[in-house]
């Protein structure tokens, strides 16, 4: 896979982050919101080495935490998910993913990330999922996979 330029990916990330903060975090279905940045980090993992991917995950998580006042939660979950799953993603870096492969990878990534996030909230004061943990994990995963598939279909590459 050709590695896209860093500037372009940062620009895309910024746009996605801002659109998430301004719009998509408010578009909820049954109080379940989309995890748009997971889609972005999946692209990063499929394009960049582990070192850069972890930095991207940490920065994205940090910015997301800053904008949602969840300091450390998203950073921990994204970084942890990238650390755990990068080895799997690395195997698919050189091939063009089929739809089911793309969706499976995305589903696995968002599942791990949501699980880490949900578990972390159990030990953190002042953050409440406002719904059962299983519903949060599954709901967020399914919602994000559906949107991720749509994004994958309409995106140029």
């Amino acid at each position, binding site marked *: 896979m050709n590695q896209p330029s860093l500037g372009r990916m940062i620009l895309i990330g910024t746009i996605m982050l801002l659109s998430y903060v301004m719009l998509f975090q*408010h578009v909820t279905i049954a109080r379940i919101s989309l995890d748009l940045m997971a889609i972005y980090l999946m692209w990063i993992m499929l394009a960049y080495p582990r*070192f850069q991917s972890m*930095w991207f995950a940490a920065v994205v998580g940090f910015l997301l935490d800053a*904008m949602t*006042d969840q*300091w*450390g939660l998203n950073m*921990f979950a994204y*970084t942890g998910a990238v650390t755990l799953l990068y080895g799997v993603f690395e195997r698919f870096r050189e091939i063009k993913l089929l739809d089911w492969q793309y969706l499976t990878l995305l589903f696995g990534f968002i599942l791990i990330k949501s699980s880490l996030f949900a578990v972390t909230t159990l030990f953190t004061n002042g953050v409440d999922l406002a719904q059962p943990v299983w519903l949060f994990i599954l709901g967020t995963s399914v919602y994000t996979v559906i949107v991720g598939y749509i994004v994958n279909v309409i995106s140029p590459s």
Partner: protein
Amino acid sequence: MAQPSNGFFGRDTLLGAFLLLLSILMMVLRFDDGLRHLRQASLAVVSRLEAPLSNVRVFRQALNTNRELQRQNILLQDELNRLRSAETQNSILRDLINFQDGSTLDLLPVQFESKSIFSPNPTGSITAGTEQNVGLGNAVIHPQGIVGRVILTTKQRAQVMFYSHPNFRVSAKIMDSRATGILRWNLKSNETMILDYVPLTIPVQVGQEVATSGFSQQFPENIPIGIVESAERQSDQSTWLITVTPSVDLNRLAEGFVVQNTTDPIDQDPIDQDPTEQDPTAQDEVDP
């Protein structure tokens, strides 16, 4: 190409551990003063970012509110119309009750079930018949004036010949001069009545009130009929041709009174009587 990982304690692992520890540290210290300034700054940034969306939200909320208010407005308008209608009806009924209480006549309140005002023989049916002692020839009046007379009866219903019927006649007088004449419908204008047989020696002025004279045994005396609209000399005759505007608007007529206990020589038992012999209009059906 992917860069090779550099062992379990390599650069990537150390970075991962560092970042995870950093995030845990942030979680622990999030409520401490160390992050306060950062939180304040992020709050300011997020507020600015979400401001346009909040406007959209406000606009959307305004649209919803507007829709709800429109719905409530329609309901309130409907309720208001019904209240106004009830108020009007109340006022009419109150006038009728006052009229009945203040009158020495034996009045039976009735409602008009149907009206044929614009037909060649204008008639209407009322909600009272022989069981309520409504008889043929009984006058039908309204607090504003005369309406007509009963021409056909059944047990529960009766047919009323309106004053606009071509065959309707009533003895009337001009209230000021007490000059009497015969009142009939003006078939030419179809909006007014004609008072005949008032001598030219009687001064007639526009605006004078016209009422029943009492010479008719069907209509008691002094029941209003209308107002003099104009008075002309009839050619080759020594009487006035007086045009009278009726007091009662048949279009809006919905209630009235049957004047009972008036002795009418043509009053007969309605069961034994063939209505078609009484009046040509009696061929119409009474019940709607």
